[in-house]
């Protein structure tokens, strides 16, 4: 039996309208919900990601030209800033980012078969100069030009980065440059005239991306559900394993840069922002006259936020620590509770119940 992929199934695709939709919500409520989140969360998150990748690229280029200890520190700081910005974008699982080959072109993770690592090791061993040119890097395996590759190149042997004219430094710059260009495209694809922002804003009239405003609103609700599922199954459950013996610290996201929890925290910040922003999901739930549901949402998100802030060691260390596992299991349970709450109760209350059979392409 191959269990490799069990649990990677995302709840995805279009949601549909439940016949039991609360009549309380009007077309304009869905329009406001999707529009507000687009302008207050999505566009700013992509702007920030575009800026951070550009700054990282600039920093690495000047560091590689003149490697100094301070420059090294700044480079690693800017890497973390970029990852912070990416972790904030990561839960927004719809729109241009989903176009082929999907979010993996920014971060190819989880690398369940070790494909990325194999490619990387080969490139580093042979010092394959073709990866140093951004245009040619863009045509290669996405696992050679993503943030996961950048983390490997910078953190696997950080001291090598500082060697004069090091291959690693030039390669890191090329990846950063490729990511700068991809981040800029994503922002552009959202904000240009007729871009994805316009598709959301005009959804009520029917656009190329949405049949109607409920589908646009569903994209947000669905994104929250999928993001929670990814945190649960890929970021927590996979490294934890079923038992202490089957725990795998290297399955934790960003374990080399020791920022697994930080990624989850920032993912969760975006998720809570989608809930608590003005006209966000909490407001929509209240407009549907379900204050109890809104209160339950607030309680659970507070609890998770507090749980997350309690972990001080990296996740990669904690998964194989028998004492820490109960708390990690509890965190997992809270995430599962929140996902169920959003998926079942909130979706029903706001009239956007996911259709089990409506998933793409089957």
């Amino acid at each position: 039996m191959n269990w490799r992929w069990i649990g990677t199934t995302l709840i995805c695709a279009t949601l549909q309208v439940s016949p039991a939709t609360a009549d309380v919500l009007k077309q304009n409520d869905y329009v406001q919900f999707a529009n507000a989140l687009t302008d207050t969360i999505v566009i700013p998150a992509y702007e920030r990601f575009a800026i951070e990748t550009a700054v990282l690229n600039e920093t690495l280029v000047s560091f590689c030209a003149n490697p100094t200890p301070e420059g090294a520190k700044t480079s690693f700081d800017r890497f973390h800033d970029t990852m912070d910005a990416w972790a904030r974008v990561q839960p927004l699982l719809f729109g241009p980012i989903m176009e082929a080959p999907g979010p993996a072109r920014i971060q190819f993770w989880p690398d369940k078969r070790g494909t990325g690592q194999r490619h990387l090791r080969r490139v580093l061993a042979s010092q394959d100069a073709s990866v140093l040119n951004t245009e040619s890097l863009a045509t290669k395996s996405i696992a050679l030009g993503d943030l996961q590759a950048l983390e490997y190149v910078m953190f696997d042997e950080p001291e090598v980065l500082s060697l004069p004219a090091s291959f690693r430094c030039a390669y890191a710059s090329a990846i950063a440059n490729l990511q700068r260009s991809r981040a800029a495209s994503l922002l552009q694809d959202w904000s240009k005239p007729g871009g994805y922002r316009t598709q959301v804003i005009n959804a009520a009239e029917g656009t190329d991306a949405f049949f109607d405003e409920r589908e646009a609103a569903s994209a947000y609700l669905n994104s929250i559900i999928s993001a929670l599922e990814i945190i649960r199954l890929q970021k927590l459950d996979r490294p934890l394993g079923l038992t202490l013996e089957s725990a795998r610290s290297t399955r934790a996201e960003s374990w080399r840069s020791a920022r697994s929890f930080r990624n989850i925290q920032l993912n969760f910040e975006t998720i809570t922002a989608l809930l608590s922003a003005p006209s966000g999901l909490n407001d929509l739930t209240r407009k549907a006259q379900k204050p109890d549901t809104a209160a339950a949402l607030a309680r659970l998100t507070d609890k998770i936020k507090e749980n997350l802030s309690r972990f001080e060691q990296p996740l990669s260390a904690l998964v194989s620590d028998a004492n820490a596992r109960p708390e990690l299991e509890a965190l997992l349970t809270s995430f599962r509770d929140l996902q169920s709450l959003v998926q079942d109760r909130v979706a029903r209350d706001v009239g956007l119940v996911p259709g089990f059979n409506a998933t793409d392409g089957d």
Partner: protein
Amino acid sequence: MFASRRLFLSTLAAATLTPSLPTVTLARNGGSKWMACRKTGNTFRATLFNSNGAILMDVPLPARGHGIATSSVHGQLVIFARRPGNFAIIVDLASHSIAQEITASAGRHFYGHGCFSQDGKFLYTTENDLESGAGVIGVRDVENDYALITSHASGGIGPHELALMPDGETLAIANGGILTNPELERAKLNLDTMAPSLVLMNRLNGHIASMHKLAPELHQLSVRHMSVAPTGAIALALQYEGPKSRHMSLLATFDDEELTLIDAPETLTRAMRNYAGSIAHDPSGQIIGMTSPRGNLVSFWDASSHTLLGQQTMRDVCGIAPGNLPGEFILAGGSETMNATPLSLGQSGTFADTQWDNHMVSVA
């Protein structure tokens, strides 16, 4: 999923798949049975039920299931993993037990559908060759523990449903055209260049007898599911990957020569939301039923004239199979099953904590 992994391991220990409750009552109207996959709680099952909605067998699955292949010859059926899964579970109907579990070979995954040869000796499966991305038809020897004997190129990318033609020698294969790779989740990698096709293949040597495509401007209409009438006419259910501002017709037919897109009224195409989930003929072969889960509707068509006979509304409807009498279908959606004809709809069963999955088959 997290809970299902644990549950599945413990459930496998159970000796029999027959539930102790409720009491099994055979249907009065001939005792036909149907099987479909479903999600219940955090577990996935394939469930055999009768026309009263009584569960006759419940097979635990390691993950979400999809299509089911049946054979009346040896009483075995095969439940396939949803793509990009790699398990297929063989169930023995007489003993109500899992006979065997097979796994896609290295570098391959199943696409979710398969069919038996008429004599029940061979199982044909749609598969993805990960290295090349090419569609493959796997041929397995039933009497030799379903060992893979050979593979044929499907003639396209993303083969999905396949069916045996009435001549017993030809396989009809729906090459959906969409390139995916499990390492990139379910991302669709070639929407701009996709080229779906219906392929007719000699099952013995893998020779492609003919390949049929819709007009080039319709290349984003993925050919995914099919039902073959006793006459050999094929009805195909399509999914449109282009802009949602275009509302496409989703029924195509193939009558010996040409793949034809059947016109549908704009009100219907708009309601179907560019997505048909499953398709079947009624027991007479005269009527086609096609489900649209995104539109919560099923449409019925005359299999000869291709005119629209009627439509019914049912939430999340997807699974569809022939009913017991001419003109009848069984539908599954949400937690319910329904008896339907082009002009009527009535509940036949309701199942606790159930979300019925995409497909249903009738089991003799």
